[in-house]
């Protein structure tokens, strides 16, 4: 393979803090990593780049001893190591946030942050001191939640922040962050980057994975690109343009991608005015204040707001996942009572949850079963979808969404994060919904796939599907939506039209006083 001329020169630099040489990792039938080299220096932020399934998470897990590589050596500060598990890696000064939030939902926030290093008095855990310490750590990150609350009560974004707080709480030499920002909004990301910079300046080596190019360029000093489990090269961030980076990642010329992007960009200009779903005064105590909402045929309605502004909760109400306790909803002009998801599905509504691990995919089932599940459930148990139809449908969507591996019998739990998300999306697309509610559908999805999904949304809208689109990435929302509903404190504060900009939204969210004007506008 011809190595790009911009590969970083190695000679002049100090010895690497962490060095992997010729690392290979294999799973039954999958070569996840093949002879990959990787270096991480003290005092740098190093981005690990690659498409979904390129092997980023696997590399991280091979480094921290979760997987034992089949070949290769790992050295830390020049000494060869071979960790038998994350505990040993941690002892060696490597602190890690793995991709999916890996915390214990049954424990409190404070316990999660300090598990294994709780403050003790007379040999017993000092709960009060532990909570106080956790509160401090959270406050450092600008997060003010009750450290004594149970983790499961918090949305996935907060859980992500807690995981980060846990990782930065120790004095580590190496900090590894595998897609820490996928569920965070801009403020949180900024906060995280501030912390990362402080740590970097202190000499900590930081490994960072993200599919947001902006973020990567903002924070990283150097990057390593992987493709299909192989090393493409190591580069200085400053030397590599975005376009070059993307083409290194996807291994194709960029033309195709640009085309896709263009298509996605021109989100169907003309949305109809025929309402698919109309909600009046729909709300639920303690969750979402009663609000009105109309979604037309072929229209993409974006939901914008900060963390905890109630977007997810609103989506759940529209899908019957939670029961609204006020208001009325009509679908196609007929009054519906969405008592449970079944009813919503029967009415032609689909909902792709943001919590793909907890509420989305079924890890122990194959891609095929996951994809057809919702369709099958709607069909009823007695009318199984014929094998042939299944295969056709599944094959089609595997191709359309570029799900890897392409083997429909692969267990979804073993897929890379991004691919799991695609499977989930496919599940709902096969039901041919009238209204598709997407909660963070591009979370953890690589840039190529993200544009693909955006394009798909635009196409669906053009075909007449109504879409509710929730994303922490305001650009995305703005680009795709015909209309944007802005949420704050679980209340709808404004509805903006197609020409709204990210700044408009930010202003609305930031200033309470503007609320009335905005609604009027």
């Amino acid at each position, binding site marked *: 393979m011809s190595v790009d001329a911009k590969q970083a020169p190695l000679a002049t630099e100090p010895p690497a803090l962490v060095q992997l040489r010729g690392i290979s990792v294999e799973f039954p039938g999958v070569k996840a990593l093949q002879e990959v080299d990787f270096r991480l220096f003290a005092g740098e932020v190093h981005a690990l780049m690659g498409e979904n399934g390129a092997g980023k998470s696997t590399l991280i897990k091979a480094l921290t001893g979760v997987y034992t590589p089949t070949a290769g050596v790992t050295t830390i500060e020049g000494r060869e190591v071979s960790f038998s598990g994350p505990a040993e890696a941690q002892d060696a000064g490597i602190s890690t946030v793995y991709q999916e939030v890996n915390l214990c939902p049954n424990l409190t926030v404070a316990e999660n942050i300090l598990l294994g290093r709780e403050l003790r008095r007379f040999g017993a855990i000092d709960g009060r001191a532990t909570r106080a310490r956790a509160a401090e750590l959270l406050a450092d990150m600008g997060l003010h939640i009750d450290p004594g609350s149970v983790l499961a009560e918090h949305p996935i974004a907060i859980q992500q922040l807690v995981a980060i707080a846990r990782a930065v709480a120790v004095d580590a030499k190496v900090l590894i962050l595998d897609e820490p920002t996928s569920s965070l909004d801009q403020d949180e990301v900024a906060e995280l980057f501030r912390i990362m910079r402080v740590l970097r300046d202190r000499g900590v080596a930081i490994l960072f994975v993200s599919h947001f190019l902006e973020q990567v360029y903002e924070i990283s000093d150097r990057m390593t690109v992987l493709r299909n489990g192989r090393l493409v090269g190591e580069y200085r961030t400053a030397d590599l343009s975005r376009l070059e980076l993307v083409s290194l990642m996807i291994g194709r010329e960029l033309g195709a991608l640009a085309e896709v992007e263009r298509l996605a960009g021109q989100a169907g200009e003309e949305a109809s005015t025929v309402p698919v779903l109309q909600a009046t005064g729909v709300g639920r105590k303690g969750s979402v204040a009663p609000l009105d909402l109309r979604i037309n045929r072929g229209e993409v309605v974006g939901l914008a707001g900060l963390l905890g502004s109630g977007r997810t909760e609103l989506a759940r109400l529209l899908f019957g996942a939670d029961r609204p306790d006020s208001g009325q909803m009509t679908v196609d002009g007929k009054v519906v009572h969405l008592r449970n998801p079944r009813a919503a599905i029967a009415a032609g509504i689909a909902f792709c949850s943001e919590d793909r691990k907890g509420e989305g995919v079924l890890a122990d089932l194959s891609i095929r079963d996951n994809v057809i599940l*919702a369709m099958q459930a709607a069909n009823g148990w007695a009318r199984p979808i014929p094998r042939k139809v299944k295969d056709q449908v599944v094959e089609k969507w595997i191709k359309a969404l570029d799900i890897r591996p392409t083997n429909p019998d692969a267990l979804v739990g073993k897929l890379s994060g991004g691919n799991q998300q695609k499977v989930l999306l496919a599940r709902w697309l096969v039901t041919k919904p009238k209204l598709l509610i997407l909660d963070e559908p591009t979370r953890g999805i690589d840039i190529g796939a993200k544009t693909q999904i955006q394009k798909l949304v635009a196409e669906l809208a053009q075909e007449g599907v109504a879409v509710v689109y929730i994303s922490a990435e305001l650009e995305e929302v703005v680009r795709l939506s015909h209309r944007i509903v802005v949420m704050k404190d679980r209340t709808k504060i404004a509805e903006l039209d197609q020409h709204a900009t990210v700044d408009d939204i930010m202003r609305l969210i930031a200033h309470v006083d503007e609320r009335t004007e905005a609604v009027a506008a």
Partner: protein
Amino acid sequence: MTSTRPLNRFRSSGLLWPLVTLVLLLAANAVVRPSFLALRIQDGHLYGSVVDILKNGAPTMLIALGMCLVVATRGIDLSVGAIVAISGAVTCSYIAGAADPTSAGAALAGMGIALALCAVLGLWNGFLVAALRIQPIIATLVLMTAGRGIAMLITDGQIITVRNPTFRTVGAGFLVLPVSILIAVAVFVLVALLTRRTALGLLIESVGINPEASRLAGLRARTIRWTVYVFAAICAGVAGLMISSNVSAADANNAGLWIEMDAILAVVIGGTSLAGGRYSLTGTLLGALIIQTLVTTVYSMGIAPEITLVFKAVVVIAVCLLQAPKARAALLRRTRRRHAPPDLDAEPAARPNTQTLTAAMVEKVAQP
């Protein structure tokens, strides 16, 4: 990657090791007593130790089938033993009290009433678990305790003996093969068809893997859970008929005592995890057969009652070790290391056991 070759498919299905165990057990018996495998026709039906295993194992098999589905939904049913007792008690009391205790009508009516009652008991369990969301083990413990009491209440604590040829057929009759095994196999086929040919199996598995995700995908999670308890209870009811019919008597105290444990053991030996999700009906069947063969082995090899349990423990542990990929891998690695050339990397990648990658870690990480 799943291979299309049937042998490999079979291997990856996890049925290989239970089957190996069963064959080993039978072989051990045949070695100790060559006549063990002998079959002859006696009064128009097959006669032999293997036939006994099938006949006596049928109730456990049936109950294990029901239990398997319950376990697949992440539940457990401790009340099946009590339901066995109730089913036998109701039938025998009805027959004994009928105008003509030997008539086919009495037997059929009695069995019908018993099974209907069992279905109601299943509904009850399902109500506690699915509707009230009480933890299955404690919810079914209620009926486990009270149910046997109810059975004894029905029989007044006595063993009720009946002489009814029709009723006798269920547990002791033969159509060349024992009728009970035919019933068990029929139910197995029925369930297999019902769950594998329809979408039921998929729905059951997904409820067991992640109830909330299933609900959001539009499954009737509650109805499914409820249904499997009813099914398990009916299976237990039929098993109860077999057990009492086999000795022509209802013994409310002892019928089905601890059979729930055997059934759960069969399910687990068959490769179904108690954490719910993917299940194997064939494995369950094999598991039940292993357990019954074990019992028969004890009797026919003349193992002293004092050490029967130790023997059972050893076999169960051996089965589990054989079945656990981790343990097999460890064993294999040891023998390989001794015999094979040290160059493991040269082996083709498709053989997980030879990889230094810890399979367990992979599994663990893959699970949510």
